Structure formats: C-alpha cells, structure tokens
C-alpha cells in the first residue's frame, strides 16, 4: 500500500526516503510530463530515468510494481521503455494515457535527434566533423559490444544458452541470413530447450 503525499515510500517493508514529495495522482497530463522528463534525461537508455520518475519522484508505483511492469516489457518485442510508457499510461487512462506516455517519451528525443541530424547533414562533410563522427562511431561500436557482452555473460552457466546465442549471432551478424527467418527458427527452438530444462 502507498499513499500519495507521504515523503516515505514502502519498499519490501523498508522505509525509503524519496527526493520529492508528491501529492498528485497520475492523470493523462502528468503521465505525459513524467515520461517527457524521463525521455530528455536519459542518455544511452531511458529505463533508469523512467523508474526514477514513476517510483521515486512521483511515487506512483512501488519498486516491486515497477519490476513486475518491467518484466512484462522485457517479455514483449520492441523498445522496452516505449512499451512501459504505453502499458503504464493505459493503466492510468486507457488509450489516452497510452498515447500520452509514448508521445511524452518520444517527442522531445525525436526532435533533438532530428536537430542533430540537420546539423550533421549541413556540416557532416567538413573534415573536422567527419573525424569527430568517425571517433563517435568507434566509441559507439565499443559501447554496444560492451552491452552485448554484459547481456551474454550470465548465459555461460547454461550450455544450450551459449549454443543458441552463438548460433543466432553467427546467422544474423556474420552470415547475414534473413532476420525474420532466423528469429522464426531460433526462438521456438530456444523456448523448447528452456521448456526441456524446466521440466
């Protein structure tokens, strides 16, 4: 149970101080602004910011409720945080809430990246900019490799998990086989293996 307007949130029985007291119930407009703030504050992943907004700043969800919501979003295809904004918004105010969540989350970042794109389109051919963007690309490559390794590392405990991940990486990343076909083949196989392991 939680109360809007208290300075203390309840997290698995432990009192946790929050950095802002809110007495506001979620509405369509407030859902919009909460995801708007999460969107513009999040670089390289908005999820921690969305959690901060919903759990800490607004106190609309407990930590456990957020984890449950996030489990659903990971289960679904597409951008996790976009799904989260839709599902939470829908819980608050149906379709209007869902639209408020996703538009709030994406509008400012899309505008910002388009601004960046226009600058890049205008000045991208200048030698210093070209070098800067080349360096940025190398850095982004290093970062996504680090993210991929961090995601793959816990799999090492299961032999079939390693085999499936390696096969998917080979088929999609190296052999460049058609993506849809690869997912259509590997996803059921992997789920069947998980089913066997769980039985």
């Amino acid at each position: 149970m939680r109360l809007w307007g208290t300075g203390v949130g309840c997290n698995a029985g432990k009192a946790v101080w929050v950095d802002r007291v809110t007495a506001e119930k979620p509405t369509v407009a407030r859902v919009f602004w909460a995801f708007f703030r999460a969107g513009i504050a999040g670089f390289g992943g908005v999820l921690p910011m969305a959690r901060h907004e919903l759990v800490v700043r607004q106190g609309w969800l407990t930590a456990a409720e957020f984890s449950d919501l996030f489990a659903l979003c990971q289960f679904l295809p597409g951008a996790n945080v976009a799904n989260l904004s839709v599902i939470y918004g829908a819980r608050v105010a149906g379709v209007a809430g869902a639209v408020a969540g996703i538009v709030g989350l994406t509008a400012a970042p899309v505008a910002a990246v388009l601004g960046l794109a226009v600058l890049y389109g205008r000045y991208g051919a200048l030698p210093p900019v070209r070098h800067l963007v080349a360096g940025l690309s190398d850095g982004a490559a290093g970062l996504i490799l680090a993210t991929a390794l961090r995601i793959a590392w816990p799999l090492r405990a299961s032999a079939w998990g390693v085999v499936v991940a390696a096969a998917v990486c080979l088929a999609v990343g190296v052999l460049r086989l058609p993506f849809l076909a690869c997912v259509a083949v590997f996803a059921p196989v992997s789920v069947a293996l998980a089913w066997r392991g769980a039985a």
Partner: protein
Amino acid sequence: MRALASLALIFGGISLVAIGGANTAVPAMQLAVVDQDHFMSAAEFTRLFALAQAAPGPNLLVVTLCGWWVAGVAGALVATLAFLLPACCLAYAAGRVWTRFRDARWRRVVQDGLVPVSAGLMLAAAAVIVGGAVTGWRGLVVAGVVLAASLGVKRHPLWWLAGSAVAGLAGFY
C-alpha cells in the same frame, strides 16, 4: 512516396521481432536499409547509429535517423511511427491481460527461452556496428579502449562517447 512506403514496411515489420529491446533489431535494420534497399552504406548506417547514441532518449532513435536519411523529416516520422505502432499496440493489449498470464509456467519458460536469442541478437548487432565503424588501427584502438573502460569502470556511457569523439577529432589534427 515510394521511399516512405518502403520505410513503413521495413520498420513496421522489424517492430515485432525486436526481441529484448530496440537494439536487437539493429542487424535487421542494417540488412534492410544497406543490403536490400541500398539507401546508405554500412559506414553511414553506423554513423547514424552513433549519432542516435549521442542524443537523449530511448534506443529507437536510430530508426528515426534512418528514416531521416532516406526521406527527410517525413521519412523520420514515418519510420519512427512504423517502428512504434505494432509493438505499442501489442503492449497495450498485453498490459490488459498481464495479470492473467503473469504467473503462468509457460510465461516463465518463454521468457527464459528468449534470453539466449536476444543475447545472440545483441552480439550480432555489435558485430554489425563494429564492422561498419572500425576501419584501421585507430578505430580499433578507440573501440577497444571504450569497450574495456565501459566494462571495467562504472561511469556514464556519455563520457566514453565524448572521449571517443575527441579522440576522432584529435586524429584529424
């Protein structure tokens, strides 16, 4: 008009197979816009991916930039909407029945089963981006340093991106 239609088809189709987040669909995006439709080179795709990382917001901004490259602002909006709509509709529907299947055993099994697939897709995405970015020993050094730093030191990723941009600039002078 044809470009907008093909953007909608490409990203609408990819939307529902991005298992485990938008970045798992990077190999599919690259295959579609580079190898199949020849909208851009592999190096250009990687530069757009890097620009998207340098902007605030969710991971899907690379979709916005691909659309922009192909057909300007209209292309950006069409690609972004096409990528969001199917997955968001599914999320909307799933959110309503979630409590009914949250504790089901098949849900746990399907989720566990998809983890290696999404890990494999992320590794493939990394392979595609590294392949498009890193040319020559300088790029290899920058990517390697960022990789090691990101795995070894807990810092905001934006620091590593800024560092690599400066390193790229320094290589010019």
